Structure formats: C-alpha cells, structure tokens
C-alpha cells in the first residue's frame, strides 16, 4: 500500500465514498477541491463510516482529530498519504 501514488489512492478513495453518494450525477465532476458534504451531498453522519472504510482499506488508523480536517477529497488524500508514509 505504501508505494501507491496519489492518483491510485484517489481511485481507491472514490470507490470507498461512492455508496455514500445518493446523487450519482455529482460523481462525474469530482475533483480534489470537491467538498464531501457541500458538493457531494454526503450525509455528515457518514463521514465516520468513510473514515472506518479508509482505515480498513489502507490498514491505517485515523484519529478523531483528523476527521474534522477531512472536508474535501484533497484533504482526505493528504491524510491518507501522511498516514501511509508515517
């Protein structure tokens, strides 16, 4: 897992968040700037589920402090990369 590049991580991340997106039409325009709650309309209660799914997929641990910082696709990628490299 640790030698994945950012694009590969992004592909995995988008697969993880896909079931949490009700309106599939928004997924065509996902970018690193996309806000999980405001742009992708993900229910805020599901952010903890996404974190758990990320932890399982990448075999990492994301502390509660990081969850508040995970607002966009890009920030989620930052956190995953940081954890994978630490």
């Amino acid at each position: 897992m640790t030698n994945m590049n950012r694009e590969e991580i992004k592909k995995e991340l988008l697969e993880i968040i896909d079931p949490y997106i009700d309106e599939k039409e928004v997924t065509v325009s996902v970018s690193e700037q996309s806000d999980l709650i405001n742009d992708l309309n993900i229910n805020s209660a599901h952010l903890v589920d996404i974190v758990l799914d990320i932890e399982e997929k990448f075999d990492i641990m994301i502390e509660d402090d990081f969850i508040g910082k995970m607002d966009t696709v890009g920030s989620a990628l930052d956190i995953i990369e940081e954890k994978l490299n630490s």
Partner: protein
Amino acid sequence: MSQNKRRVVITGLGVVAPNGLNVNEFTHALKTGVSGIKRWENLEEINFKCQIGGKPPVSQEYKDANLPDFIAKKVKNNAVIYACLSGLEAWKDAGLEIAPGTYDRKTGMIIGSGALGLDSFIEHKIYPIDKGNHRRLGSRSVPESMSSGAGAYLNGILGLTGRIFSNSSACITGSEAILQGYELILSGRMDRMLCGSTEGDGRYIWGGFDAMRVLCSDSNDHPERGSRPMSASSSGFVPSGGSGALVLETLDSALKRGATIYAEVMGGEVNSGGQQNGGSMTAQNPEAVVDCIQSALDNASMKAEEIDLISGHLTSTKGDPYEINNWVNALRLDKDRLPFINTPKSMIGHCVAGAGSIELVASVIQLKEGFVHGNLNLEEIHPQISEIVPQDKLPTQSVDTDIQSVIKANFGFGDLNCCIVLKKWND
C-alpha cells in the same frame, strides 16, 4: 354502517418471504406449495436443537438491483433490508410517487418490528465493543438496531411526511400495523398509510426460542417437513424472517387516482387476554380471543356466514387445536358451514413480527387471484381439529375458488390478539 363512514382500501402490496422475494414469486409459491425452509449447518455447530429455518434468499445482486446504493451496499441488518424491499415494492405497486419532495401531513407509515437489533448482523457490531473498539461501530449501528430503524431507512427512500412510527407487539406486530393504519385513515387523521412489519433472522433471534423448547427439532433431516400446522404431529414452530407491506388509502383517494384496488379493509380488533384465565406470556386467554374475532366481525359489519377463508395464526405447535377451537367458538357456525382454514406458515415458517404483514399480503393475493392456498405437511390432521372441522376445509393443495372475504388473525407473546376482516374488491 353510517353513510359518512370512510372506506379504506388496499392498493399496493410488497413482500419478502423465505419462498418468494416479491409479490409475483410469493404468489407462485403459494399457488404451487413451495417451501422456503432450509437446514442451516451453523446451527448444528452451535448446538441448536432446531437447525432449520426460513431466510429470504436475498443476494447482493438482488439488493443492488432493487435498493438505493447506500442501503444495498452498506446496511447489513436483514430486517431493515427486507422492510426496504417490501415497502418500496408496495409503494411502487400502488403507483405512488417516491420522494415527491412536497409536504403532505396526511400520508404516513407504520413499519413494526420484533427483535430488530438481534438480527445476525450484530455479530459484526457487538464484538468490537467487548474488545474495546466501539469506535468501529460507525454511524449505522444506532439506526440499524433501534426498533424504528426499518421504517427510518425505508422513509429515507420514500420521503413521507405524515405520521411515521413503528409498533412492536410480538407476533401480532404485522397485523396490528395494518389495523393501526386502517384506524388512522378511518378517523380522518390520515388519508394514506404504508403499513407493514419486518423480522430479521439467524441465531440471535432464534436461540431464545430454541431454549424455550418451542421450535421444531425433529425435522433437521427434512427441513421442508418441519412446519406442520394443525397436524397430529406438530412439534414446534420453524423460525423465519421476512417482511410484508400494504398501502392503505381512502376509497375516494384510490378512485380519484385511478388506482388498482385489491381489497377493502372492512374492520378489525386488537385486544389482550391480560395473561389471566388461561392466558399467560405464551398462551392466549380464550375468552379474549373469541371476543377479538367477534368484535372484528362486528366492526366490519359482517356475519360469520359471509366469511370464505380463515387465515389463522397456527404456528405448528401444540397450541393449534386450541386456536381452532377458539375460531369455531367465535364464529358459531355449524361444522359443515365453516369456511376454509389455512396459514402460509407451512411454507414459510413463523416470521415472528413479520408474520402478520406477510400473511395479510397472502390473504389479499388469494382474494384477488381467486384461490385458497394449501397447507403443506397436513397428511394427518390433529384429532382435536378433525373432530370440529371437516377435512375438505383444510386443503393440502391449492384450491381455485373465487373467495370474497378473509378473516385474518395473529396471536402473540404477552397474550395479544389481533384480527382483521378483508373483502375482495369487485369493480
């Protein structure tokens, strides 16, 4: 019947049962006598005496094709899944709009449940807690285990804005949900209600019943023979899961929409024997059962002579002869004037809180299709039953007959009774 009394009709059906995942499959199974009971090897490994049961065979592909992505992929509680499938099917069948986006205080939902949080999904939920890792529960463990969870997830799809609640009354839960919906419409509080119930399945729900020695333990090698309601050899019920849902609405509303009307809810009654005079946690007070049935007929403004089919509770236990005796005492008909008697439990087992709604769906199907389904495994009728009911009223195979009315009852733990009278809708 006063001229101003509202009339309530059934315009949508949905079901998920061990022998059929939707109304079409279930209808075919009822007509041809298909059992949905199987042996589950894991129950042998954990020392269950009863190792058979009915689980609706819902695959991942079926969920993907019929449910929103999030529920299909992420929600694991079978009781929730079954209710979402049956509720959605009923709503679509009625031709009603999903998530209309407009506020309508007169359209609501009652989805009852039994042991919703004890579905087999909890094996993934409980262990992390005991290992000090409850943070892994995620956001779904609360709605997937609260009693109103099935209705809550279903309404996340349908978007109804009237009264939304979930009753829980053991084995009468399903029929009580329909009766509650009927009464809310009758009173004018609601115009349209999606009513149903659900039960998951697996060892955490069934274990307690097995411990009570009330399950069938003599048919592990012949699962389909285990559920034998009214039989001389009935030895305990076969546990199962599933969900049924019906759309109820005013006759005016149905006619205005041009909806297909299947049947009219004529009336019903729900009561308790108070766990007195023969009643207990697990047995019914016969006086209350008789009154519940007679009162349901009175409320329906119908006479016993007008009833063509009794859809009994009849769980395949030693209680079946007592139930039949109560029916006969309540209807006060000569032996040769008794209506047909059946129960889908010989095919699907006892879906506990799901039973009433699934069996009401079966009742409506028989009314609209003109048949009386057979009772499987009834080669030898219990002698106390054959003494008071003619054999030809207990069909073992489907009978084509244009029945006009059904009286349906369920009886539950806590000495609870519920009875509903339905009449076929003829244009």
